């Protein structure tokens, strides 16, 4: 009897030590797979917004992802009038209006192609379409293009830093 309880104690003690070890090693394993500090630190890009031309879609790069920058023409702005969803996505710098978005289809992450004649984006993978504001024109994409975190600094746009304009877009559900 006395022996049994000793054995039981040894068993429980061993179990406790093993559990601590197991949790510790799982934490280490999880953290080893986290993005490296150098990867996270490289996550900022500054765009000079004065260099873009109206109606010309330029692809920039931020965190390895393509970023679509489109300076909207007066015609596009006219079309958007009365469409609060599209207007809410506008990024105003000075007198210019921009669409800035992560150029990955929100369905499965392909890069849609810009069609200047139609002023829209077509994703060849599954046929999804987005308009010039980055809103879904044709499913399967579940939502419009995501807007990367940005901060407006004069005529510069800093991607990766959260500014008040982006924060309010996020709070209002304009982007994720």
């Amino acid at each position: 009897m006395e022996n049994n309880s000793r054995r039981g104690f040894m068993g429980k003690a061993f179990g406790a030590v093993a559990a601590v070890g197991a949790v510790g090693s799982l934490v280490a394993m999880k953290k080893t797979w986290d993005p490296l500090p150098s990867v996270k630190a490289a996550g900022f890009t500054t765009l000079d917004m004065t260099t873009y031309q109206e109606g010309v879609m330029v692809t920039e790069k931020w965190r390895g992802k393509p970023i679509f920058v489109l300076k909207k023409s007066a015609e596009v702005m006219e079309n958007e009038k009365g469409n609060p969803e599209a207007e809410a996505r506008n990024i105003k710098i000075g007198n210019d209006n921009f669409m800035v978005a992560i150029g990955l289809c929100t369905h499965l992450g392909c890069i849609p192609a810009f069609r200047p004649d139609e002023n829209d984006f077509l994703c060849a993978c599954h046929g999804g379409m987005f308009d010039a504001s980055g809103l879904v024109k044709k499913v399967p994409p579940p939502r419009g293009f995501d807007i990367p975190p940005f901060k407006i600094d004069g005529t510069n746009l800093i991607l990766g830093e959260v500014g008040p304009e982006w924060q309010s877009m996020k709070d209002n559900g304009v982007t994720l």
Partner: protein
Amino acid sequence: MAHFTKATSVKDWLNQRLAIDKVEKVMASEYWIPKNINFLWAMGMVLVVTFVLLLVSGIFLLMYYVPTVDEAFYSVNYTIMREVDFGWLWRHIHGVAASVVFLVIYIHMFTGIYYGSYKKGREMIWISGMLLFVTFSAEAFSGYMLPWGQMSYWAGMVITNLFAGGSLHADGLVEWIRGDYVPAQAFLGRFFMLHVLLLPLAIVGLIGLHFAALRIPHVNNQDGEEIDFDAESKKYLDGDKAGSKVIRFANDFMSKDIMVVGIFLIFFFYLVFWNYSFALDPVNFDPADGLKTPAHIYPEWYFLWSYEILRPFNIDLGLILFGFAQVIFVFLPFLDRSPNTCPANRRGTMFKVWFWLMLSNMIILTAMGKLPPEGVFSTIGLVAAIVFVVQWLALPFITSREKKV
């Protein structure tokens, strides 16, 4: 034991230390195989041979492959293909075997379904086999990443995005899996590790489990006949070889296996030397570019059927049905409620139709998965995906109404 005598021969010396006589009996000479089985039962051996080809060719590729985003593409397409003597041979063997192994796995699987080899006492054979299928899928996917071409990169992008779980939007999980915001060095390094170490190790272990699962319930046969292996093997050992329903695995049954393997290898090396390009996607001969998507992204042929189940629906429903398609085969032994273990064609109309419809439907899904998602192909794909799901949901009902034959 621990009682040793002076060895009379090398074999006796080993026998006292490794019991090689006993091992030989258990593994080969007294491992009993029913006589009434056809060439489809040789697919297991074909798979073993293909796996060895993959392992050996992989070891040779590993010597010159460089797992970095800057060099991976050129180490494969320049160093291995042009500089290393016979490097092209290892790559073609590896690429063709990776594709053909799935063809044989599917034949192996549908043989099992047709003859009811997953039923009554053989559930573990089926389950361990399906675990092998899943592990082989992961192995194939991680290997597809390594040349770091356009298709590798974008397949990595699309497949890891599936882990965001649609509306759950678990981007943190996806970034954790990749170790970066997009597939990059961390991603390549860990998939290299998975492909050359962890997953092959798991596969070897699962092959061991798969064989062990077979050893006790024994292999099924063409008529689903319940054979008393003890009585039949005794008959065989007593000299009534013609009257016994079983034969030795080695060398008797193996001779038939090896003949099938021989024919398979002729076909296999025909592909390696003259038709290797079917296993190498042209898009993957462009180096990976994170800022340009290929016009049409599709997986290798062996994943097309499940890809097509994902495609016609919105992202959440698509993911759920995709997950369903990945795991549902594992539950086959429990979804099939019929008492019969015999070929599908003798189990009555319902299951016969179920089987052939499932097989044809998966071929249709495969074809639609390859075609662009437009017009009538979209519709056919949608219908086929729905039929697939309905068939599995209906299986318990149609099989429980089946009469004992």
